[in-house]
Structures are given as structure tokens and as C-alpha cells.
């Protein structure tokens, strides 16, 4: 029998010597140029980290290519970031420029550090998930083809901006707390295959799975029925009972959310909040989505103060002004209708016109 429960390789064996030697001794950092972070240690050691964009969905040739590069310039070590970029760790300053040159020559993109748009945290999409309402990788590629100058530092912005994409409301990733999030949503009530329900689904479990109590048994058909007025198209019942189908190419699409953040820097973490309730799926390039995202970035970049994240900017100017400045319509969809909805209703006369 195979070994089990041995865990991952020990990180200590995966560290470049400069990191092992200066572990816990770093003093400060600078960002001398886009995508390059210089860390200085109390030992005097200096480390340059070069950040390279990755499509995240990669193949073995790509893996071998970055290994080639890391062997050439970085003693055979590299790392990935929590947002799926690659980092080449250069301990010999003379190797920095040659590395950058080679990356450029090979067509790789450098950037994402400091006040920039970094890689997009995203999900499986049609590539691999059964729940996908849209394709995450395609959206990322389309959006970043527009926004790459904000990654590479060609266009400067006031602060970090984090984008995330999720192919359904499960939001595998960071959508609930991102500066801009793109989330696949349904807009129609699940369709019931009564015969299949009778055959394959546990009725009580299915009824219980609905957070709004929209489902009740239909004893005549040994199936269930859904109260359309109460259904918020969350899809939860379809996970429990595969005889319910919610996928609807005509009506599924994406929503756009803004102003979330994760860090505790300055302000507490914030949830992303609804900006655009619905845009139709328009593969392969989702032009309405990319236009909207770009527009949001531009309006924010123009009006925000130095260091002010999207959500902090909106908090300062107010959502009233956000909708005015962006020109996005405010609709009844924007008003919360879920459990803690009342907590978002404004109970003060302090607002802007």
C-alpha cells in the first residue's frame, strides 16, 4: 500500500539560500520599477523579486519554461504569489536586468506590484465546473487584455485594485471582498423534471435546501413545486437534487460588484457591493463587461486620493455620488432583500443629492 498522510514537501528545502539566510530578518522594501520589489535585510542582503503574470491555467511546458528561467537567473528556485503570479527571486543584482530582458523577449508580462492591478483571482468556469454560469478564464483574459497597462505600470493608479471573477454565486475565490468582482448569476427559477425528481431526489432534503422556503412537496407527482415569487435563483436546490435544472443560456449572465477589500490596512475589510445587476453572457470577449470594468477603473482612478482603495473612495464620496459619477443606474435590485437587509437602509438624513 502507498504511503499516506505525509504532507507536502518541506518548505525549508524549497527556499533559495538568500531567503533561508535572511528569514525573519527583512528590514524594508522598495518598488524600484513596476513589478520589481527590492527587499533589504538587516544582514545587508538585498533581494529583488520579479513578478510575472500567469494565466494560472497552465501546462507542463509552461512549468518547464519558468523552471528554465529560474535555473538561469535564480539558482533554481521560484515561487508563486497568493494571486497566482510567478515570482523570480534574484539575489545577484547583476542578474536583474538580464532576467527582465529575457522575460520580455519571451513575451511575458511583468508587473502587479504596489499601486497596480494584479492578477485576477478566478475560478474554473466552463473549463471544469459543473456549476459554471459563465467562463472565468475567458472573462479574465478579456478583461486583462483591456487592463494590462494597469498591471505593467504603464498607467498609474492611486492604489491597489483587486479584481476577481467567479462563475457562480459560490464565489470560489475572492469575489465577496474585491475592489471589482464579476460574478455569474442566474435569473430564472429552476425547472423541475418531475419524473426524475420522483426517481432520484430526496424530497425533504430538497425542500430543506431552499434558504427562502420557496420549495414545497408536490405529493401528487411525488415531486416538488417552487414558488417563483420566493425563489432568488441561488441554485442551492440544484446541488441537492440534480433533477432540477437552473442553467439557462438565454438568461444567465454576469453581475458586477465593487468596493470590497480584504486587508485591514486603514479600514476594516469590506464586502463587494452590487454595481451592475446583469450583463448578458457574450463570449468569447464579453465586450459589455470589459467596457464596464474599464470604466469603473477609470472613474475611480480619476477621483480617488492617493492610496485610496475603491471601497474607501466610495465610502468617502458616498454611493449616491458613485452612481452619479459612473453613470450606472440605481435600481431596486441594488436594495438588499436578504437576511440583514434593514442594516443597509439609511437611517439618517446625512446623504448627498
Amino acid at each position, binding site marked *: 500500500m502507498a504511503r499516506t498522510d505525509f504532507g*507536502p514537501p518541506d518548505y525549508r528545502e524549497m527556499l533559495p539560500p538568500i531567503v533561508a539566510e535572511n528569514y525573519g530578518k527583512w528590514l524594508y522594501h522598495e518598488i524600484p520599477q513596476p513589478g520589481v520589489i527590492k527587499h533589504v535585510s538587516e544582514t545587508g542582503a538585498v533581494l529583488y523579486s520579479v513578478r510575472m503574470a500567469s494565466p494560472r*491555467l497552465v501546462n507542463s511546458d509552461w*512549468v518547464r519554461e519558468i523552471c528554465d528561467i529560474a535555473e538561469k537567473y535564480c539558482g533554481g528556485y521560484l515561487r508563486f504569489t497568493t494571486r497566482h503570479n510567478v515570482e523570480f527571486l534574484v539575489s545577484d543584482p547583476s542578474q536583474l536586468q538580464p532576467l527582465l530582458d529575457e522575460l520580455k523577449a519571451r513575451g511575458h508580462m511583468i508587473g502587479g506590484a504596489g499601486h497596480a492591478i494584479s492578477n485576477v483571482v478566478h475560478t474554473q468556469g466552463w473549463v471544469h465546473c459543473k456549476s459554471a454560469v459563465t*467562463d472565468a478564464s475567458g472573462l479574465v483574459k478579456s478583461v486583462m487584455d483591456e487592463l494590462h497597462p494597469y498591471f505593467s505600470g504603464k498607467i498609474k493608479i492611486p492604489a491597489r485594485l483587486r479584481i476577481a471573477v467567479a462563475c457562480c454565486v459560490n*464565489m470560489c475565490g475572492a469575489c465577496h471582498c474585491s475592489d471589482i468582482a464579476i460574478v455569474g448569476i442566474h435569473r430564472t427559477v429552476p425547472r423541475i423534471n418531475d419524473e426524475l425528481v420522483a426517481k432520484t431526489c430526496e424530497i425533504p432534503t430538497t425542500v430543506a435546501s431552499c434558504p427562502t422556503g420557496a420549495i414545497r412537496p408536490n405529493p401528487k407527482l411525488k415531486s416538488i413545486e417552487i414558488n417563483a415569487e420566493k425563489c432568488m435563483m*441561488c441554485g442551492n436546490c440544484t446541488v441537492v437534487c440534480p433533477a432540477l435544472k437552473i*442553467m439557462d443560456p438565454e438568461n444567465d449572465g454576469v453581475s458586477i460588484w465593487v468596493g470590497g477589500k480584504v486587508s485591514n490596512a486603514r*479600514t476594516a475589510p469590506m464586502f463587494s457591493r452590487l454595481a451592475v445587476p446583469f450583463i448578458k453572457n457574450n463570449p*468569447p470577449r464579453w465586450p459589455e463587461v470589459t467596457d464596464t470594468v474599464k470604466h469603473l477603473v477609470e472613474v475611480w482612478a480619476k477621483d480617488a486620493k492617493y492610496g485610496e482603495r475603491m471601497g474607501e473612495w466610495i465610502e468617502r464620496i458616498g454611493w449616491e455620488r458613485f452612481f452619479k459619477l459612473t453613470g450606472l443606474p440605481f435600481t431596486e435590485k441594488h436594495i438588499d432583500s436578504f437576511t440583514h437587509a434593514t442594516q443597509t437602509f439609511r437611517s439618517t438624513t446625512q446623504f448627498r443629492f
Partner: protein
Amino acid sequence: MDEKKTTPLLDELEAGEWPSFVTQLKQAAKKSKMAAGLVQQLEASYEEKIGHWKHGGIVGVKGYGGGVVGRYSDDPERFPDCREFHTLRVNQVAGFFYSTKKLRELADVWDKYGTGLYNLHGSTGDIILLGTDTQNVQPCFDALSEIGFDLGGSGGALRTPSCCVGMARCEKACIDSMDINHNLTLHYQNEMHRPAWPYKFKIKISACPNDCAASTARSDLAIVGLWRDTIEIDQDAVREYVANGFKLEENVLRRCPTWALDWDAENKELKVKAEDCTHCMHCINAMPKAIRIGKERGAAIMIGGKAPVVKGANIGWVLVPFMKMEAPYTELKEIIDRVTDYWAEHGKNRERVGELIDRVGYATFLKAIGLEPVPQMVTAPRANPYIFWSAEEVEKRG
């Protein structure tokens, strides 16, 4: 089926400056029939605006209850090459550091047993090996174990913990996030590999409140480094910032959330009211050469973070405001055990720990796991008069 082999829609995603996943897929397709099948099915999804995967069956390796996500095409006649397309979730190295040697070994194994397609990394942090069939799952795992890679979690189990780079490359690290990550991953192999819990459970570790691992938002139990004494100010370095035209008032003083900082213009000294500082990192982030984290370091434990399904998203709540973090992290593990034991016993099916706390009440939960209430746990005390009293707390009535 031959005309199907063209992929006009996907091809459009090879243009543009951003690295293309389609290019990655197509390269893989050249070597792997299964990858080629995926490309065809994906093109169909782009045309029809609908996914083509169906509810997965259970696929696994011997001895483990999870770590593999089974995936089947919903139209195997049409897409026979990717009728089975399972993924393996593989424990990443703490901090995502790799020797190229290890990565090459991994690539060799995966080219042999699968499509050669990966997510580096999955959103939870695993190495995701994307696409193999049922018969190759066990041999693949055996080969992985040869090169020292173990599986991550799926189902009602712990997920592979993940962390920020911390002390390895960051001056702000209050704790050794990578070591904690590695230690917990090894310690909880059983909880990861043999689902025995109501639902998934995630642990993430960030070595300071900047939270570069997105731990508070994205894990059930987050460990966030911080300090309980005062920030350290290098006055000379501050003066240098000021001399260089740095906008101290506008960019730092006014942005300190508690107005804890004051610039004594006369003596050219930056003063901090220690008791007002909420370690928001801002001044440290803004002036990394002049301001540093404090000396008495440890971590806050945050509980209940999660995505929206199905009671709404949570950003983790303060469970322990401060805990020292020294290997072997016994106190931390005790807390984790008490939390997961209580949750395992009381959680309903598909109920995350945050939802359980919401349902039973924070006070009940704290009592059950033996923690005292402290004001750091809340932003404000209750505003409603609906306090619970137990019979033991009151005078017996005649």
C-alpha cells in the same frame, strides 16, 4: 465530427497581451487527447453559452476519502475524449516556494498520468492537476507520493491551509506564517484526507493585518499576525521622508483611523499614542523605512469567514485577539480542535462553522469551546434588550 475541430471562438482568446489560457490548452492538446477533448467541449460551451459538465461521481485513492474531484462530461457521445476529467488537489508547499527540481518532477508525473494541465494554484491554494480519468487516479497518486506530493482535501474535511510569504520575504511578518502552515498541514493530515465533518473547513495564515493571504475573508479559521505593544518609529528616517517632501499630514496622519499619530513640528518628532493604535498597518505601509511593527508579537484568530452560500458571506470574526505563536503551536491546535470538535458535533450538513455560530449564538459557542468573552470580539455590544438568562443565574422562585 471533423469540422468541430476548429475553435473559432476560443481562438479569439489567443490574441491580446495578457497570457492566454487558450494557448496553454491548445499546447496541452497537442500532447494529450484528453486535453484536446476539453478544448472541443469548451468551444461548444462558448457557442452555446452553457457548461457541459455534470454532477460528479465519487472518485478517489486508496486510504483517502477526498482530494480528488470527479468530473464527467454531460455529453460523452459528443465529447468522448473528455468524458472523464477528474482533478487532483495536491498540497502546495507552504508559501508557494519551489525548487525547479521539484516542479520538474511534478510535471513529469502529470504528463504521464494526466493532461499536463494545472491550476497554479487553486483558489484555496492547492496545486490543481486538471484532467485525468478514473483509471489513472491511483497510479498518479502513487507516483506523486514517490516525489513527495500528497493530496489536499475535499468534501466535509479540512482543506490544505495556505499562507502569505511572511518571514521568508517580508519585513512586516509578526509570526512565521509558513512554518505554521507547514506544521498544521502535517498535523492535520487525517482531518484533511478523511472527511468526517459537516462541510469544508479552511485555515489561512497571514503574518500581519495586511492579510496578503486573504485569510479573514476566505477561511473559516484565520490566523493573522499582529503585535500588542507599540509601533517602532525611527525618527531620523521620518525626518528623511519629510525632508524629501513626503506628505506626512495628508497621507499618514489624517489616514490613521484613530488619529493616533501626531507630528511635533518643532522637535521634528512623530509621536504615537500607543493606546490608540489599532495596528492598522497604514503608517508602516506608507513609510516602511521609518516605522516598524512592535516587538511583542503574536496573532489574532478570526473565525467564520466564508463565501455567500447559503446564509450570506462572512468576514471572519475575532475569536482570540492575541495569542503567542511558538512552535509546536500547541495552544493554537487546542483552539482548532475545540472549534472543529464542537462544529463536528453540532453543525448541520453543509453548515460552515460561521453559520453554526450564527445559529447557536456567539456566547453559546464561546462557552462550549471554553473561551471568555472580551470586547475585542464585537464592534459594539448588543442594542436589543433580548438577553438570555439561565435558571442558575437568578434567585430561585418559591
